[in-house]
């Protein structure tokens, strides 16, 4: 086995701004997205930095074995090889969107996913007990919900999302996905199950653009009480309740004198990660997240 792998669910408890640091559009501070598919994601480098700080309580040698040694000098001089240099045993993958909370006429909001998002998540979750089967693509614009969904009108069987009006069918696989995702979050199983919906990939593409949270912010001049010239900007976030799936992987410790197996590396990395502060704009309440791995038997090797 090359590396052991453990998938995790990242749940945004407040709006999550994992930005790109650059913009060419009308939003000054957009969130990071995959370029070719527009799927929002949280870079693994962002999560690794947060985990590194969250696990400061580890013995220094273990901490360094997990995350790798920190550079002592910034810039080009820091690239020089040092005695005892080693790679960190932990590899943190990007967290990719799996369900986006979208305003719903019924049920307040729905956790909306699509066959493409679920298929990508299936790869990360492969090997876990109870993983639902492949969700077939919807042949036309429409939605699928679980039995007992509170987001569809009982008579007309329609899902009313923002300004989208979608025919909805009951599909057991949707229920199975909601239950599976909520295994990391048992106390909210009912809430997730009754709000989980799967729309076609094209509708999801539209929602990926329109259902994120965009806020306009200003800075006020304390002397005049007006907006400082040029200090008006827009920033985008993934809304609170967004669900993302990512993967942590680990090999044995490569640090001399610190023997840790891949399993031990993962356990140390994940311990105490119930609440994390991810992304930017923390001082205005952004980025409070819950990170949880699936309980039970974890996969040891891919089929």
């Amino acid at each position, binding site marked *: 086995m090359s590396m052991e*792998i453990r998938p995790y669910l990242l749940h945004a408890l407040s709006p999550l701004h994992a930005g790109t640091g650059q913009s060419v559009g009308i939003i000054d501070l957009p969130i990071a997205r995959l370029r070719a598919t527009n799927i929002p994601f949280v870079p693994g480098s962002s999560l690794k930095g947060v985990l590194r700080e969250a696990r400061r309580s580890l013995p220094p040698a273990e901490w360094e074995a997990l995350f790798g040694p920190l550079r002592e000098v910034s810039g080009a001089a820091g690239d020089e090889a040092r005695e005892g240099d080693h790679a960190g045993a932990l590899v943190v993958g990007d967290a990719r969107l799996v369900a986006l909370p979208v305003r719903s006429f019924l049920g307040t909001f729905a956790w909306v996913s699509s066959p493409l998002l679920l298929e990508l998540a299936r790869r990360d979750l492969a090997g876990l007990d109870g993983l639902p089967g492949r969700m077939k693509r919807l042949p036309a614009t429409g939605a699928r919900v679980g039995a007992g969904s509170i987001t569809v009108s009982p008579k007309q069987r329609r899902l009313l999302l923002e300004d989208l009006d979608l025919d909805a069918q009951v599909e057991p696989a949707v229920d199975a996905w909601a239950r599976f995702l909520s295994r990391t979050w048992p106390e909210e199983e009912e809430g997730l199950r009754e709000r989980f919906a799967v729309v076609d990939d094209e509708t999801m593409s539209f929602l990926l653009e329109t259902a994120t949270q965009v806020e306009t912010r200003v800075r006020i001049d304390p002397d005049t009480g007006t907006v400082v010239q040029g200090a008006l900007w827009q920033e985008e976030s993934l809304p609170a309740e967004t669900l993302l799936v990512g*993967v942590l992987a680990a090999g044995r410790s490569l640090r001399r004198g610190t023997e840790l197996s891949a399993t031990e590396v993962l356990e140390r990395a994940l311990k105490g990660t119930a609440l994390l502060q991810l992304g930017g704009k923390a001082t205005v309440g952004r980025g409070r997240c819950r990170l949880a791995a699936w309980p039970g038997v974890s996969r040891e090797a891919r089929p």
Partner: protein
Amino acid sequence: MSTTARFALLPRDGLFCKDGRGWYTSDVGRSHSHPWPPPSTIRGALRAAWGQSLMARSSRTLSPAQWERETQDVALGPVLALLRPLGEDFAPEHRMWPVPADALAVDGRLQRLLPRRPTRGVATLGTEDDAALEALWRPVLPPGKPRSLQPFWTEDALSGWLRGETPKSRGQSGPPFRVDVRVTLNIDTQTAEPGMLYQTPILEMLCREPLGTGAREWALGLECTLPADAPDFPGGPLGLGGKRRLTLAERVTPALFAAPRGLPERSPGLRLILATPAQFQRGWLPDGLERAEYQGDPAWVGTLPGVEGQVVLRAALVNRPLELSTWDMVQRRARATRRLVPAGSVYFFERVDGRPFTALSTLWLAPWGNGREEGLGRVLPGHWNPEEMNT
């Protein structure tokens, strides 16, 4: 005892294959990536995975020197670029090939570049001090401004090209890049550390289908030889390219590496297209050829692996060299940069005895030149009629 494994690598989070340009050579904090991972990067990832699996099995930590020694027999065979609709199993029709250098797009359509005998008084190929170089055949360029071609061809397009047919499409664009910006935060001030804001171009492997109907994904198909029997290798994700980005592995069948049906059995001349970059001792000139006289003119004559009899090199359409810089994990320093003949370059041969080439399919993805254990120098055999432009 060694074993052969075949699988496809699916980079989960995209790929970053940094080229030899450092972070600090031009714009501060900006790196540069290869547009497609060189085979050497893939072999490096396999060796790292093999070393990790050895450590996991033996519960010991390998030193860099042990690691180097115990993984050096991990050899890479053919490497393929693959593009499939999400959810399908890999099949030969998903193979994507580097665009051949003997293709040219002028006035919106593709044309084959056909070498023909040089005539006196034409421009030279070099410094005019190498008679064998000057004697090489060269194509006549059609009038009009050539347009750039897409970097990849589909299986259909390439199979037809090897038979001498011209595809209608100008090819397929490669996976797109996104730019990831990264920063190191100072934990005391929670601000960016000076000089530690940097960006990396990431090759994205997941693309949306045209018209938004689903998605397609790029992957790397490969065949490798391992020094021991390891049926489950890699058995987990690999770290591929810079920053050890996670890459999932999926088993594939030998059929994925087989020659396509319809390759010509016989051909008066031989056209060899490089499917992967090649490393020759004398730069662009294939190994096994020596300067000699043929039909009264200076020429490069010799033998080719897998080809019967002596051959003469008639033409070479070679793209700009690929500068490859790799890292020595034991010495902890960069190895000397190598210049490789890039994939897509095309060589044209005739047999010295004037007989046709036969059994072209045996040359399918055959190795050529140095660096075979790195997957370098794999060739695609094609039909060529030397008289097509010379009668």
